[in-house]
């Protein structure tokens, strides 16, 4: 035996391997947060990269400007080398600086460094603010080159401009550098702010989305609560419908419709059980009571005989009811599968008529075959005979003496239709739809005289469904009733 409780968690585990038993609300918040975190990380990285680029762009722009100014001061055009003397101005700044040293030095340290180096690497001149420090020169670089470097332990951005003589040989390098310390600090701050704010934002976002998700799935909680509290006794409960006609509205409405059908089916089942128990218990009570009273006192033989006969009649009526109930139960449980075969309907009709003819003759009713019924149909022969038999015996039961019953077959849009028409009391329009219901009797007071239980036609309907035979009934009061069987194309 399998315990249902054992299976559920296992399926749960395989379904959500990485998110074990997370509520929908948390899952929604989780997915949303992960997606947002990824997006934010990308945006933050892009911002950092862009700012970094812009900062260096600005440094490089400043350096270019500085180089141009230096060339201008030296009255040199472009990168043409015209002797070291032209760059005296670099040294000159050193001289000027000496006059108001102390105060100026700090300021100078924040501004650009300039250095002139010859091709062998010897420093020809350098700006005063460099003092003991020298700027890195890399002869391996060709052309104008911007790069990061260190001066006295401080980060600088520098440019190296080769000075070329008329023969095209590099004679010297002009190196200009600007300190990056403050800009780098700003960049670092930005990076730190982003690193710290990222998890905080994500956490806040998760909490917020969890609240919002919780709020938006609250109707689902209502659905769960209602469905959980639903039992056999309070099947009339329904889920309150939300105001907005959204997916949750549709879900609630769909579940309510399901409850309606469930309640209806349950009600019908309950009614059936009540009817069946009433139908069985009433004759049982009558037999039991009759016999109990009978044995309380000695009575004459005729009295005994009459009462025993009555009890036997009641018992055989009960036996018939039990047979019909069992048959219905077997068909309903689908334990009886139809043996569908291609059969001649005329054979089935003749077999049923010959079986029921004596009943009809007793009531002086004639059964007429309107035309020679013919045609091959796909049906279970035994089931088909039972269906026709039930309909025909009903027709005989409700037909007045001396009337006739017509049986005919016809083709209607390539489908074979078999009709059985009586000229009896008929069925009122409003009761026509119920005739196939179990234990339904058109006229309750008619039951005792005809001895039916109201199960015959429900068995017919069940058998028709099993064999995919269409069944319909039409009737006019005091004129007669027609049952029609429409067979699927064989």
């Amino acid at each position, binding site marked *: 035996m399998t315990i249902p409780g054992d299976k559920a968690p296992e399926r749960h585990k395989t379904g959500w391997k990485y998110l074990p038993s997370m509520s929908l609300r948390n899952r929604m918040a989780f997915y949303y947060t992960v997606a947002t975190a990824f997006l934010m990380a990308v945006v933050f990285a892009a911002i950092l990269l862009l700012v970094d680029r812009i900062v260096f762009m600005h440094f490089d722009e400043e350096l270019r400007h500085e180089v141009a100014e230096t060339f201008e001061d030296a009255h040199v055009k472009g990168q043409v080398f015209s002797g070291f003397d032209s760059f005296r101005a670099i040294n000159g700044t050193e001289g000027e600086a000496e006059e108001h040293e102390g105060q100026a030095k700090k300021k100078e340290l924040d501004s650009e460094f300039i250095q002139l180096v010859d091709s062998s690497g010897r420093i020809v001149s350098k700006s005063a603010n460099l003092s003991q420090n020298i700027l890195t020169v890399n002869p391996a670089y060709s052309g104008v080159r911007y790069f990061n470097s260190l001066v006295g332990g401080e980060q600088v951005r520098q440019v190296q401009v080769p000075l070329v003589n008329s023969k095209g040989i590099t004679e010297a390098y002009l190196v200009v550098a600007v300190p990056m310390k403050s800009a780098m600090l700003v960049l670092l701050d930005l990076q730190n702010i982003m690193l710290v704010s990222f998890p905080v934002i994500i956490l806040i976002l998760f909490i917020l989305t969890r609240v919002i998700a919780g709020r938006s799935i609250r109707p689902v909680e209502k659905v769960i609560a209602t469905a959980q509290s639903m039992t056999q006794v309070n099947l009339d409960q329904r889920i309150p419908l939300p105001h907005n006609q959204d997916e949750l509205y549709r879900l609630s409405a769909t579940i309510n419709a399901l409850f309606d059908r469930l309640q209806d089916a349950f009600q019908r089942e309950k009614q059936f059980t009540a009817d069946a128990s009433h139908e069985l218990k009433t004759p049982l*009570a009558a037999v039991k009571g009759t016999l*109990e009273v009978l044995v309380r006192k000695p009575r004459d033989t005729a009295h005994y005989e009459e009462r025993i006969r009555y009890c036997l009649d009641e018992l055989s009526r009960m036996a018939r009811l039990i047979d019909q109930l069992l048959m219905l139960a077997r068909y309903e449980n689908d334990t009886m599968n139809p043996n569908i075969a291609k059969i001649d309907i005329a054979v089935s009709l003749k077999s049923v008529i010959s079986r029921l003819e004596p009943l009809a003759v007793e009531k002086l009713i004639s059964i007429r075959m309107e035309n020679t019924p013919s045609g091959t149909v796909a049906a279970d022969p035994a089931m088909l005979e039972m269906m026709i038999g039930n309909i025909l015996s009903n027709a005989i039961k409700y037909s007045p003496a001396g009337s006739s019953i017509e049986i005919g077959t016809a083709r209607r849009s390539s489908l074979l239709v078999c009709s059985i028409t009586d000229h009896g009391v008929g069925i009122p329009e409003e009761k026509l739809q119920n005739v196939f219901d179990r234990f339904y009797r058109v006229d309750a007071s008619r039951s005792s005289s005809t001895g039916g239980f109201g199960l015959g036609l429900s068995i017919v309907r069940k058998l028709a469904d099993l064999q995919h035979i269409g069944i319909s009934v039409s009737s006019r009061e005091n004129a007669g009733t027609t049952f029609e069987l429409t067979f699927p194309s064989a």
Partner: protein
Amino acid sequence: MRLLVIEDETGIARFLKEGLEEEYFAVDVAFDGKSGLDLAMTNDYDLIMVDWMIPGISGVEVCKQIRRSGSSVPILFLTARDTLEDVVFGLDSGANDYIKKPFEFEELLARIRVQLRKNNQDTDALTVGTLTINAVTHQVFCGSKEFTLTPKEFALLDYLVRNKDRPCSRSRIIEHVWDMHFYSDTSVIDVYINFLRKKLEQAGCGNLIQTIRGVGYIVRETRPESE
């Protein structure tokens, strides 16, 4: 004691009438709700048995209408419906008791006796002076000496003793001891009273049944010293 049975199933109605009459009850039978209600409203029954599912007016409705008319007659529901809701609903509609079909006839009798017991007597033995009658076994005793009565005599004495110290008019006695098929004049009571008086005298119970001129009869304990 006169009972009304409202039951559409002829087999059940027949054995109830037969069996109950053999228990000295006067029994009327109605086969549908409408005629049952009519009978219940016109006659003074000691107990009414109603089947739930009867043609016309349902048993529950019959029960409700009887109660609405102000009657407190004991009503016993007799039905094949047996779910808890049905039992509760039946009792809530005004019935005093509920018996499920199929039932034991003995149990039905016991339940009828419970409803007929007045003032919550704890036994089915009724006594007046030295007279004791047992409603279950239908035995009558004077002191410890048993004597026999015919069913009608027993029914009459049973009714008078149940209403001891209360004057019973002839018409009331007719209503409660004879069924509706009895249309004869009330002088038949005087005949039965005479029979009863003789038998009681012979048994040594004295003159328990006294005549109230112009009204009827009363059963009360006679005190020799006051005579």
